[in-house]
Every structure is written in C-alpha cells, then in structure tokens.
C-alpha cells in the first residue's frame, strides 16, 4: 500500500524511477522537497515577472518603472504589481490612464 502510494507519485519519472520502488522513493522524496521549496519560489518569480511586465508597459509610454511605482505610492494608489501587470496586458487604455496620472503628478519635466 505504501509502495502503491509512492509509485503513484512517481508517474512520469525517468527510467526505473517510475517503476521500481527502491529507486522511486528517492526521487519522490526529492520531488516533494523541491515542491516545498518552489512553492515559496513561485511567489518570488511571479513578482519578478510582474515587475518586468509593468516596466515594459510604462516604458512604452515614456515612464520608467521606478518612477512609476514611486509616484503611485506617493499618490496613495495602492494597486499591487499583480493587478498593474494584468491591467497593462489586458486593459491597455486603463493602464495608459494610470501612466498619464503619473506623468501629471511628476509635472511637466517628464521622466528622469
């Protein structure tokens, strides 16, 4: 019964690790440890991705990410990076409205 459970978790593994218990148990334990580690890493990776996406989108409109986020924070607009990147991808006009708000708050000097 225990062997069945382990081998079920070992589906898709390479070579004997998917069929033979004594080899599978090692790989399954490693896989579970990686899952624990990567559940935490997933959140970091997601945030990195959002930041890159927001940066790309704001630069299209002539503002850089650091100034965009700083001005939003000063303006007390508390949209998080996940939402901002979602808006930048799916609601480009709303996002441009946000960028224009940032440009307005920064004054006529523009970026930099």
């Amino acid at each position, binding site marked *: 019964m225990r062997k069945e459970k382990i081998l079920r978790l070992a589906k898709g593994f390479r070579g004997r690790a998917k069929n033979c218990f004594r080899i599978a148990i090692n790989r399954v*334990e490693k896989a*579970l*440890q990686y*899952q*624990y580690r990567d*559940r935490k890493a997933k959140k970091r990776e997601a945030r990195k*991705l959002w930041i*890159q*996406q927001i*940066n*790309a*989108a704001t*630069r*299209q409109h002539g503002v850089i990410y650091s100034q965009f986020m700083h001005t939003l924070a000063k*303006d*007390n*607009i*508390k*949209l*998080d990076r*996940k*939402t901002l*990147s*979602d*808006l*930048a*991808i*799916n*609601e*480009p*006009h*709303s*996002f*441009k*409205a*946000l960028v*224009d*708000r940032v440009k*307005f*708050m920064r004054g006529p000097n523009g970026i930099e």
Partner: protein
Amino acid sequence: MMRAKLTGKSGMAAVAPARARQATARAAVHALCPARAVSARRPERSVRSYSAAQAEVPPLEEGSVAYEKQDYAVVELGGSQVIVEVGGVYDTNRLDAEPGSTIKLNRVLLVKNQESNDLRLGKPYVENATVEAEIVQHKKAKKVVVFKMQPKKHTRSKVGHRQHQTTIKVTKISV
C-alpha cells in the same frame, strides 16, 4: 485576441508565459460562468475622464474591433487584489457566511465603467464604491503535501494541507 504589444527591453520574453497562464485561468472561469464566456477581453475604448487628471488616450488602432466588454473593479479580497467582473466567479480564503447569502465588498481600488468610459482610481479606495457578491459554496483546495527531510539524519516530516476556500459570484458593481 488583441493585446498590448509590450516590446520593452526585458518585457517580451516575460509576457508570453504569463499570457498562457492567464488564458488557462480564464478558460477555467469561462467554464464556470457562461455569461463571462461571451465577452472576451479586448482593447478598451478611450478613457475620457478619471478622478484627478485628464487622460490623453490614442484612438483605437485601425482594424481593431471594440467588442462590448463588461465593467470591472479591483477589489481587496482575501488578502490579495482581484479584478472582478459582474457574473465572474472567484475563489478566496474562507469567508464567514452561509452559501447563498450576499456579501458586500467595500475595499474597492479601481472601478471601470465601459459605457461611460469612466475610470475611477481610489486613494487608496474609491469612495462609496461597493461590489456585491453571492456566496456559491465553501470548499477545500487540492491537497498540498508539505514534506521536509534531512538526508542521512533520520528526520522527516510529512503533512498534508488543504486550504479552506469560498467560491463567490459577483452580482453587482456600484459606485
């Protein structure tokens, strides 16, 4: 599907996998809620006004088709922000309410009305904006196995975890 073309330095490679994830997530919601499946996400019409400053938005590009899309709002829910539409179905952390009852979400960060092209930004929350939702069901998430071990040290621990969740269906966005 028209999308904003993000061609910044580090943007291009990063955008594609996120779109695929969003597409599958959106497909899952469409399956739950037929009303939402009808209106796909499309580029918006120009924004004419919002709470503090005038936006200059370029006209829609030639060849892009502006489908009728739903209003949306960004709500703080379960410790995170969610972009909600009327008729949309969302999972959050467990709420203390009966299935079938209605709840009001008060922390609304952004509201977009497509018909009047009105975008409201909150500082941090939009005044007098609420989102009403109906509790569909309570459920538990898929089991996550939390496994820790030290090799060669005769220590290991295996714990299963199922997060309690609530499915809500948004019925109304009002400002």
